[in-house]
C-alpha cells in the first residue's frame, strides 16, 4: 500500500470513529429524552370524576352576598362530604371513607374556588368534574398495576369496583392538568404545581442578573480599558478564570456563611439564592465581556479619541455598545447555567416545602431544580411524573435561553 493510500485509510477510520462517537452520544440523549417524556407527560393530564354538586345552603357557611374574603376563609369540608353522599347513596361509615379517598383531599378547595368564581351558584345544582386522588389517578393511567393482591395495592377491591361502575356510567374522564402550571407545591401529588418554584427561580434569576450584569460589565470595562496591563491584572485574570471553574456548592457555602451568617439575611429566600447565583455567574460574565471588548477594533477607539472624545466617552459611546452583544450572550448563557444549579439553592435553604407562590424576592421559595429534587425524594408515584415534568420544563427554559443567546449574537453582532 502506498503512503497516500495509508493516509486516506487512516482518514476513513478517523471519520468512522467520529461517527460512532456521535451516534452513541445521540443514542444516550434519546434514551434520556424518551425516559423523561414518557414518565413526565402523565403530569399534564389529571383524572376527574363527574359529579352532580348541589351547593346546599345548609352546608355552606357563607351566602352569595358574602365578600370574597369571607368565601375564601369559610370551610367546605361538610359540603364535600354531602356531595359524596349524594352521588354515592347508601354508604355506611367504613365505605364512605373508602369512597372519600377516591376523591382528592382538596375536594373542599375545589368547591371553594368554584364558589369564589360563581357566588350565585349557592342553592343550585351544577355538574362538575372533581379531581380524583393521586392513587386513583395512577391506577387509571395504568402506572399502578390492578392485578396484584389487594394488600399490595393503594386502591382496595371496594374502590376498584366503585371505579369500574363510575367508568361504565361514563363518569370518569381526563382533563388537562393546568394545576401543574398554576399551583404551588402540595402534599398531594394531584394538586402539586410548579408555579411556586418557577417564580422562585424567576426572582432568583432577576436578582442574579441585576447583581452580576452591571458589576460584571463594569469590572470587565475597567480591567480591559482603564487598567494598565501588568502583574496585578495578570493575577486578577488567573483568579477570575479560576473562579469560573469553582464548583457551585462552594458559592452556596459562601452564601450561607457570608450572606446568611454574617449579614443576617433570611434563609430560604430568592434574594439570597439569586445573589449566590450572581457570585457564580460573575466570572462567566466578566470573561465573556472582556473577550467581546477585546473584539472591538482599536481603530474605533482611535477614531473617537481623534475627534476629541475623552477616554470615558470613547468607552461608553462606542466600545461598550459594540461589545454588548457578546456580553449579553455570555450573560444569558451564565444565567442558563445558574437556572440549573441546585447545590447553591440547597445550601441557602431554597429546598423546603413551600405551598404559597412567592410574591417577591423576600418570600420563602424553592427553585426549579430544587423543586425537582424535592419531588424526586418523594415515594409516591404521583410525584414521579411531576419530577419528570419539572425536568421537561427546566430543559425547555434552558433551550429557550440558549437559543435567545445565539439569536442575540446573530442579530446584534457588528461585522467588521
Amino acid at each position, binding site marked *: 500500500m502506498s503512503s497516500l493510500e495509508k493516509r486516506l485509510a487512516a482518514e476513513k477510520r478517523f471519520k468512522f470513529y467520529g461517527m460512532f462517537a456521535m451516534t452513541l452520544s445521540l443514542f444516550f440523549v434519546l434514551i434520556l429524552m424518551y425516559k423523561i417524556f414518557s414518565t413526565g407527560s402523565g403530569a399534564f393530564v389529571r383524572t376527574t370524576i363527574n359529579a352532580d354538586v348541589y351547593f346546599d345552603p345548609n352546608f355552606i357557611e357563607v351566602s352569595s352576598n358574602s365578600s370574597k374574603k369571607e368565601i375564601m376563609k369559610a370551610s367546605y369540608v361538610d359540603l364535600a362530604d354531602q356531595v359524596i353522599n349524594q352521588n354515592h347513596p347508601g354508604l355506611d361509615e367504613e365505605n364512605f371513607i373508602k369512597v372519600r379517598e377516591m376523591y382528592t383531599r382538596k375536594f373542599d378547595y375545589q368547591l371553594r374556588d368554584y364558589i369564589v368564581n360563581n357566588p350565585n351558584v349557592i342553592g343550585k345544582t351544577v355538574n362538575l368534574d372533581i379531581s380524583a386522588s393521586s392513587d386513583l389517578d395512577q391506577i387509571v393511567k395504568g402506572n399502578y398495576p390492578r392485578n396484584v393482591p389487594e394488600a399490595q395495592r393503594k386502591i382496595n377491591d371496594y374502590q376498584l369496583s366503585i371505579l369500574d361502575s363510575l367508568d361504565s356510567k361514563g363518569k370518569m374522564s381526563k382533563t388537562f392538568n393546568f394545576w401543574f402550571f398554576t399551583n404551588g407545591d402540595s402534599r398531594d401529588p394531584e394538586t402539586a404545581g410548579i408555579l411556586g418554584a418557577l417564580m422562585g427561580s424567576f426572582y432568583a434569576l432577576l436578582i442574579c442578573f441585576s447583581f452580576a450584569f452591571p458589576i460584571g460589565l463594569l469590572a470587565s470595562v475597567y480591567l480591559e480599558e482603564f487598567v*494598565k496591563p501588568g502583574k496585578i491584572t495578570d493575577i486578577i485574570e488567573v483568579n477570575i478564570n479560576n473562579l469560573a471553574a469553582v464548583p457551585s456548592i462552594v458559592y452556596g457555602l459562601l452564601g450561607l456563611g457570608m450572606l446568611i451568617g454574617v449579614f443576617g439575611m433570611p434563609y430560604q429566600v430568592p434574594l439570597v439564592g439569586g445573589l449566590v447565583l450572581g457570585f457564580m455567574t460573575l466570572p462567566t460574565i466578566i470573561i465573556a465581556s472582556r473577550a467581546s471588548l477585546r473584539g472591538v*477594533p482599536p*481603530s*474605533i*477607539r*482611535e*477614531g*473617537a*479619541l*481623534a*475627534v*476629541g*472624545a*475623552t477616554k470615558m*466617552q470613547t468607552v461608553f*459611546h*462606542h466600545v461598550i455598545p*459594540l461589545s454588548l452583544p457578546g456580553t449579553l450572550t455570555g450573560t444569558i448563557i451564565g444565567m442558563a447555567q445558574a437556572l440549573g444549579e441546585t447545590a447553591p439553592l440547597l445550601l441557602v435553604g431554597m429546598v423546603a416545602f413551600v405551598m404559597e407562590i412567592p410574591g417577591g424576592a423576600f418570600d420563602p421559595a424553592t427553585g426549579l431544580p430544587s423543586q425537582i429534587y424535592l419531588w424526586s425524594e418523594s415515594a409516591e408515584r404521583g410525584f414521579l411524573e411531576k419530577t419528570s415534568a419539572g425536568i421537561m420544563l427546566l430543559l425547555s427554559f434552558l433551550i429557550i435561553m440558549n437559543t435567545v443567546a445565539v439569536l442575540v449574537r446573530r442579530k446584534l453582532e*457588528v461585522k467588521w
Partner: protein
Amino acid sequence: MVDQNSNYALQTSEVYVHYGKKMAINNVALNFPKNEVTSLIGPSGCGKSTFLRCLNRMNDVIDICNVKGKFLLNGNVDIYSPDIQVETLREKVGMVFQKPNPFPKTIYDNVAYGPKIHGIASSQNELDEIVKDSLHRAGLYEEVKDRMDDIATGLSGGQQQRLCIARAIAIRPEIILMDEPCSALDPIATAKIEDLINELKENYTIIIVTHSMSQASRVSSKTAFFHLGNLVEYGETGKIFTKPDKEQTNDYITGRFG
C-alpha cells in the same frame, strides 16, 4: 530653536520618541506653514506615523511610547504642557487614519459625534447644518444626502474615507493630520481625496504621510523626508523631487531603496 513666527500652524524641535528602549524619532525639528500641505515621506518603519501621532498626542494612548521635544501650536501653545487638555488639542488638530474607521453608526451620527461632544452646535438645526456643511466640504454630500440614516460601514471604502474626513472637519480643526489616507483606496477614490485635499488647504493646514511620490508632488507644497527616525531633508516639494540636496533623498525618490 523654535522661532516665534506665527505663519506656522505648528512648530516642533528637538523631538525624540522612544518605544520602550527603542528609538523611533531622533532629534527632529520641523515647522508646518499655515494653510499649506506638507508631505512626510520615507521608507517603511522610518517613523512617519510616529511623528504624525505626536502632533495630536495620539501616542499618549500607547503606554510604552515616550515623547520628548517642543511642540508649539500657533507659535505660543505648548501642546504637551500639563495645562493643555488633550481633548481640546484634538479639537484643533484632527486626524484621518490609514484605514477608514467610521463608527458603525449612521452617516449622520458619524459626522455629528464630534460637534455633539464638544457642544459646538447650540440647536438641532445648527447641528444639521454643520453635518451638511462638513459632508459638502468632504465632497460626499451629494452621494449620501438621501441616506443619512444608513449605517456608515455600508459605504464604499473611498466614501468611508471621505466620511472620516467630514468627521474630522466637523469640529472645525485648524490642522488635519492624514496618515496614508489613500493607501486602502483605488485610483479613482484616491483622485477624489487628492482633489479634496487641494480644496481643504484653503482653510486648513494639512500634514499628510504618503508612500506615493506622485501623490506627494500633486498635493503638497512642502515635503519632509525621514529615514530611520531622522529628518534627512525638508524643503519645497518641487525641489525635493527634482534636485534634492542629500544623496539619501535622491536614492529614495528614484526608487533605489525603501
